[in-house]
């Protein structure tokens, strides 16, 4: 299915949704723009994220177990500053879902 004519909804998540999730959001925006995907990226905390829906969730591994069901794609992060690694993870996942 071609999903590319709609904007991708991405959620970056951390413990209280203020510091590291915001950094993740900025890195995800960079990674997605190099992939040429039009996306709306938001950041939030674990509690709020569970009541939200998205196409992709990006969070550190500590939280990914709590986030299944929020989005079909959940991407665990181990290095917060690795934009290239994040781009590769997104590339792979989005191909699998028919976004790329």
């Amino acid at each position: 299915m071609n999903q590319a004519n709609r904007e991708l909804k991405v959620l970056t998540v951390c413990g209280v949704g203020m510091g590291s999730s915001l950094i993740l959001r900025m890195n995800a925006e960079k990674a997605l723009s190099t992939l040429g995907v039009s996306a709306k990226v938001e950041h939030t905390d674990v509690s709020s994220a569970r009541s939200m829906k998205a196409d992709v969730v990006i969070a550190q591994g500590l939280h990914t177990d709590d986030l299944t069901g929020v989005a079909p794609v959940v991407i665990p992060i181990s290095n917060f500053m690795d934009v290239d690694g994040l781009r590769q993870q997104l590339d792979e996942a989005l191909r699998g879902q028919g976004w790329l």
Partner: protein
Amino acid sequence: MDVLEFIANNIFNEVAILIGLITLVGLVLQRKPVDDVVGGAVRATVGIIILFIGVEVFVGGLASFQAIVASAVGLDPPAATNTLDGFLGSHGGNVAMIITCGFILHLALVRILKTRYVYLTGHLLFWMSLVVTACIVQAFGEIDQWRLVLVGSIIVGCYWTVQPVFIAPMMRKVISSDDWGYAHTSSSVAWIAGKVAPLAGDPKQHDIEKIHVPKKFSFFKDVTVSTAVVIGVIMLVGLIFADSDVAAEQAAAYDPEINSWVWGFIAALRFAAGIAILLYGVRMFLAEIVPAFTGISQKAIPGSRPGLDAPTIFPVAPTAVMVGFLTTTVTFLILMGVFAAAGWFVLVPPMIMLFFVGAGAAVYGNAFGGWRGAALAGVITGFALAFGQWAGWHLLSDTAPELATLADPDWYLMILVVLGLGELFSGLGENAVLLVGVVIAAVFGVWLWILKRIQRRAGEPVTGLEKESELTEQSSGEQ
């Protein structure tokens, strides 16, 4: 004059409007399209309004909690002549000015002194500025706005510059790279943990991955849930022992018809809700301001690294995170019992700090002493938070005592230093506050100079201009 007075009263004293304008300027400087500029400025302004509403709910929940626990253990509830919402109402504008001027000063210092790390942990830009404002007002009363903002900006600007530098050599060991620095107000306990952990254990021999933390503790990672549960349990236990009149009075203030037990349960949930709301407000305005700060600093300071929040090191040792959180919480709860038995003070378990500070320190402890180091780090953090809360509440009782229950270890040190200097210079008239700024700048300056000498001798990179490769060469040489 009338125009200046209007601006002073309606812009510089109204934090929501001031933050909105700062965001507007930041977005315009980034040449964002009009819809982003308008949307961002409005979101930042509404974020501040939400923050105020959250603080009101939180302060109310805290007062009920303290009243019940105090009555249960036969103490007087902690006294104060002002509250956080009152203080934010009168000094919020100054806090916003200090965030902005302090951050600009910080960027200038990083650029001139080549200190490598730009502080980008947004909520701590806000909270540290608030703590420093409260300290100066507590020490010197109502002083000129320009003196307050000038001295406040110097203090926070120096702190943000030096804090990531002093912990940098340990941080590089923890994350095995130099991609980013540790910019978090848990740095003092993290540093102590790193120093004492080798005495407790060895990172290889006492490998933390051999420890299995039961999965049933994992819901505690959600600080909204853990706050509600821990405060709720203490509240209900407190109600068993509390004076029934005190409980009835507190409950009636919420709803005259409600049963005290049901009220106690709801009060704990409102406490957690207040924190969730205030964090939502902080998140909303930071989401607009931090990208602007980041964009400006990346352009202005080539070679610099971002200084980031505590959770960025959690993936290095997820088990240490859980061990640190559990040992910090247990230590704090034991100390809560000790404080109550001794009749000292009503402690409030600060779940957010027990999690983030305890976990951050434990990751450092683990890197230098395995699981024993991580557990020891948690115990140290528990002590720092309990005694800090007790001291901080008393020290800020005329301004914003509730800050003591939301605080990290570095805040307590900052409170002690600023108020100590304030006490020292208190007889010197209206310019004494300027002297505090000068002394703190001098102390940070000397500290930075010594740090750079020590780090250079140890072969650590000390400016923003050394390459990552120098570091990797060195560490691969060790292996």
